[in-house]
């Protein structure tokens, strides 16, 4: 064996074997990813008859009709409010908890479970749990709000319903954000903290001026992940407890795409909405990967 073959990345020879190893992954992707994605792309430009499946090419008409709907504008607005609130609130709480946990847990990271476990709860189940807490007739927290003089009724009031699904999503998302913030805070070099302490910076000052800037890559990563979560995983919460109501106040984009496609049988309109959602994830993912490249380059 020649010395030159001892490279950093030695490989095996074989022509058939790598394809055999890749075949299951590629087959599943071709059947359940590329084919539906291509079909969705086609449907978005066709007006199809739900009964015969035949379609006529209508160009951008599906998109034009979509943007002419007041309902779609409302759904975009609801999604943006939901995503902004979920990302902002859950990240702020998770950061505070992670900073506290850094002080409290020390060498007992097993207690992380106290914050992490809701990661395992299905969004739909999280929605049901929070509906019960906040239910105007039965909910314990709703009664507290009533006693405080707040007219709380998520079954009738759109803003209250939005607050309810935000609460359920935030509760679930704190656990995910906490995992990352805690790991990031633990990895800040102790020497930097100590240097700041010697310079007279108190604990809050150190958090703000040393820890927070150093973990900003984690914060940025989490922001993107939270937005993706809020745009897509929220389906279960909405479908389980508000069904988009009252009055469309919680009809998020992914929920509307589902309703239009499966209940209104408007395949073209639903596909057009899916394309818009695809573009949205695409942009978020590209931003994410560009950031990862940067971090690798400068790390």
């Amino acid at each position: 064996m020649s010395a030159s073959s001892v490279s950093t990345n030695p490989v095996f020879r074989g022509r058939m074997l790598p394809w055999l190893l890749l075949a299951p992954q590629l087959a599943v992707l071709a059947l359940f990813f590329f084919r539906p994605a291509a079909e969705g792309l086609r449907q978005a430009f066709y007006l199809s008859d739900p009964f015969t499946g035949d379609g006529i090419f209508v160009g951008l008409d599906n998109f034009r009709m979509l943007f002419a709907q007041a309902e779609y504008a409302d759904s975009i607005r609801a999604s943006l409010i939901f995503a902004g609130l979920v990302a902002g609130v859950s990240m702020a709480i998770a950061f505070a908890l992670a900073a506290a946990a850094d002080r409290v847990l020390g060498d007992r990271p097993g207690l992380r479970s106290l914050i992490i476990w809701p990661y395992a709860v299905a969004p739909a189940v999280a929605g049901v749990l929070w509906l019960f807490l906040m239910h105007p007739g039965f909910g314990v927290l709703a009664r507290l709000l009533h006693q405080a003089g707040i007219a709380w009724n998520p079954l009738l009031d759109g803003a209250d319903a939005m607050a309810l699904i935000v609460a359920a999503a935030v509760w679930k998302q704190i656990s995910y954000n906490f995992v990352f913030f805690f790991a990031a805070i633990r990895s800040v070099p102790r020497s930097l903290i100590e240097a700041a302490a010697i310079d007279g910076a108190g604990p809050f000052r150190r958090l703000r001026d040393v820890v927070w800037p150093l973990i900003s890559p984690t914060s940025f990563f989490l922001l993107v992940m939270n937005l993706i979560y809020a745009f897509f995983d929220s389906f279960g919460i909405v479908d389980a407890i508000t069904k988009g109501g009252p009055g469309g106040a919680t009809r998020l984009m992914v929920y509307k795409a589902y309703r239009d496609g499966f209940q209104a049988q408007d395949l073209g309109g639903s596909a057009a909405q899916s394309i818009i959602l695809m573009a949205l994830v695409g942009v978020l993912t590209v931003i994410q990967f560009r950031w990862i490249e940067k971090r690798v380059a400068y790390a």
Partner: protein
Amino acid sequence: MVRRDPVFRALAICLFSIGAVAMLLPVWYAAAIASMTEDGRLTLFSLPGPGLIVTIAGVLADPSVQRQLFNSLIMAVGITTAKIAVSLTAGFAIVYFRFRGRNLAFWAIFFSLMLPVEVRIVPTYAVAADPLGPLVAGLRLLGIEIGLSPSLLDTHAGLILPLIASATATFLYRQVFLSVPGELVEAARIDGAGPLRFLRDIALPLAAPATAALTVILFVYGWNQYLWPLLITTDERMATVVMGVARTLPSDNAETRWGLTMGRALVAMAPPVILVILLQRRLVAGLTDVGK
């Protein structure tokens, strides 16, 4: 040495405890209402009681819940094992072989990272209803008529297969294999080990931590699916336990038997929550690695 700051430490303990209790609240009151054997209202200070066991036992004895738990288990275990198997071999092939088309395969896999199943629901449903459609149509063009049209609707395969079409796990394995020292591969080759032998005896054990992490992440992912099972199943006997919880809520909530609904919710969330608590360390390592 950082000076001990008792005030800050006390504050941190307070904040962390409040956080831990707040996270528990929804489950606490769910358990409290499920403990009531007859319909009633909770107060702020209600406690879960022995009635909880009666309610949970009642939920578990319900044959439809048993069937749903069974479906959820098949779905979660199916997605977990299938995705790990498929991703492990694909990641191995991409790292350890140079072959024509390798870049194309890599980018095809990479591209699939972008789109969750939620954004292509209608066409994915169409594929699941008639997975062999193009094959049959192609054969018909060749003059071969076959009456084969299996459908994945209302099947366990239909619950599992479309959800393994994404590549996050492949990328995790790729990262693991890229970090394996080249000398190990050389040594294996000198000892006469072929690629499959290397995969089984060296790569697989080295990837064990990643596999453990993926087991938790994918089990939780599979168990908690909601939109896809809602679409692909119409038969009551194919429903999952998460769907079952949502279905116990009547549309106006007026007739909801909260104790029973919450008992079901507790049963539906128990398996993934227990797994996450037991394998917490693996989960954390896995999540932060995927994020890198």
